[in-house]
């Protein structure tokens, strides 16, 4: 096959998928005033998202905080400056690691489940059935899922941040000889030292989590709604949802960081 034609087809497919996701997000936003009608589904989805991802989030966040403290602590010890370990761990968890870990876990657990659920509905004509009943699947299925993840991702991120900082404290005390009091004072000061209620790092981290939640839900719903071809199609939809969500988490994380720390000053 002509390589140019292949490239063209690849670009067209990707542009079509990206367009579908953007259109889906826009249409979801337009249905926001109808959210009250979907409140029950919203609560169900939020609860499921929380329950399904909470244990994994706790374990991964604890170890991520521990690894962060360990790696940073090794270098700080060389300079005799382990007193700032709490500061570095707290800020790194809140700014980057917490939202990133939570986003990836949500993509793997909830995003995959959303894609599988909607994909199965698509291949078994349930989505078509909604359409012929004049029920827009975006309103009925996508809206509650997007809003639920937009709420749950920041909430889980707060938990992830706290557990990660705690994981760091364990390593600081047992492996690096930093007293818990010093670690926690240092961490607390880092999180309360600005003029605002909380430092910029926390707000930026929560904003990231909010954006990640929306991105994961939208991309996963889009993958499910575009599934075709039976069980194989559902499997591919799940794969697409997780892959695209993780890529978006990294890209959007970069954009938000760049915007707040390099563009915005």
């Amino acid at each position, binding site marked *: 096959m002509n390589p140019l034609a292949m490239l063209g087809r690849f670009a067209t497919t990707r542009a079509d998928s990206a367009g579908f996701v953007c259109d889906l997000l826009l249409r979801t936003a337009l249905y926001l005033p109808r959210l009250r009608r979907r409140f029950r589904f919203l609560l169900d989805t939020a609860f499921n998202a929380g329950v399904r991802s909470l244990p994994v989030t706790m374990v991964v966040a604890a170890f991520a905080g521990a690894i962060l403290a360990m790696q940073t602590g090794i270098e700080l010890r060389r300079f005799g400056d382990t007193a700032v370990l709490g500061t570095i761990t707290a800020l790194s968890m809140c700014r980057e690691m917490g939202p990133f870990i939570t986003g990836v876990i949500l993509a793997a657990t909830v995003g995959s489940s959303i894609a599988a659920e909607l994909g199965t*509905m698509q291949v078994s004509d349930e989505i*078509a*059935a909604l359409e012929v009943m004049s029920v827009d699947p975006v309103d009925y299925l996508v809206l509650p899922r997007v809003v639920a993840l937009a709420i749950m991702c920041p909430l889980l991120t707060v938990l992830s941040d706290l557990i990660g900082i705690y994981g760091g404290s364990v390593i600081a005390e047992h492996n690096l000889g930093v007293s818990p009091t010093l670690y926690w004072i240092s961490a607390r000061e880092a999180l309360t030292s600005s003029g605002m209620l909380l430092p910029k790092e926390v707000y930026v981290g929560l904003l990231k989590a909010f954006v990640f939640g929306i991105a994961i839900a939208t991309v996963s719903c889009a993958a499910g709604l575009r599934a075709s071809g039976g069980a194989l199609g559902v499997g591919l939809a799940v794969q697409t949802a997780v892959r695209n969500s993780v890529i978006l988490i990294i890209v959007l994380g970069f954009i938000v960081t760049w915007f707040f720390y390099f563009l915005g000053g």
Partner: protein
Amino acid sequence: MIELHDVHKRLGTRQILAGMTLRVPKGMNFVLMGPSGSGKSVTLKHVIGILKPDQGSVQVDGQEVPTMSRTQLMTLRKRMGYLFQNGALINWLSVADNVGLPLREHARLPKSELDDRVQQVLRLVKLDHAAAQFPPSISGGMKLRAGLARALVTNPEYVLYDEPNAGLDPIISHQIHELIAQVRDDLGVTGLIVTHSRACATHCGDRIGILEEGRLAIEGTVDEMVRSDHPLARAFLGGGSD
């Protein structure tokens, strides 16, 4: 009235419809038969606007379906019911909630009135005992009957039936056929029925059309078709069929 004129549709590499022309007058049940993959279900999906033709015209009451805006399409669909092959019920809703879904979404009815209407159609399809059950726990036949109840709950002017007796035993099939005929006779509902079943075609239909290679090969009243010597009519409506 439902009218298709010279409709062509290609899905992937396959030409599904190739010059499909069809006319279903109001108050009539039109039965579409034909070999698997001949475009029967695709025809239904064109009528309700899920698929758009590559070429040709699809009209309902003189309105061109493929060029309708989303809002116009939704308005049209509120006047139509659609029975999918497997019922296409939402798995996490009970049978009653599935049946009441179109009413909850569109009709501003008090809850008691809505519940009454749901019970009424569930009784019609003899499924009132299963109202609280969920789709994964009921049989294929029950799913189909629940799907039919959902298609009828809004009192539609048109109902499109996609294999209304697929997977049903002869007794339940007969009940469904009776029901489809009753819906036409008592409620004046226009039906477009896709089936492979001779019993369904002869019991529910006023006219029968048989598709071959993406277009109607033969069409006529039930009597004409049963007596026809056309090979397709013999194959689908002859004594040995069904």
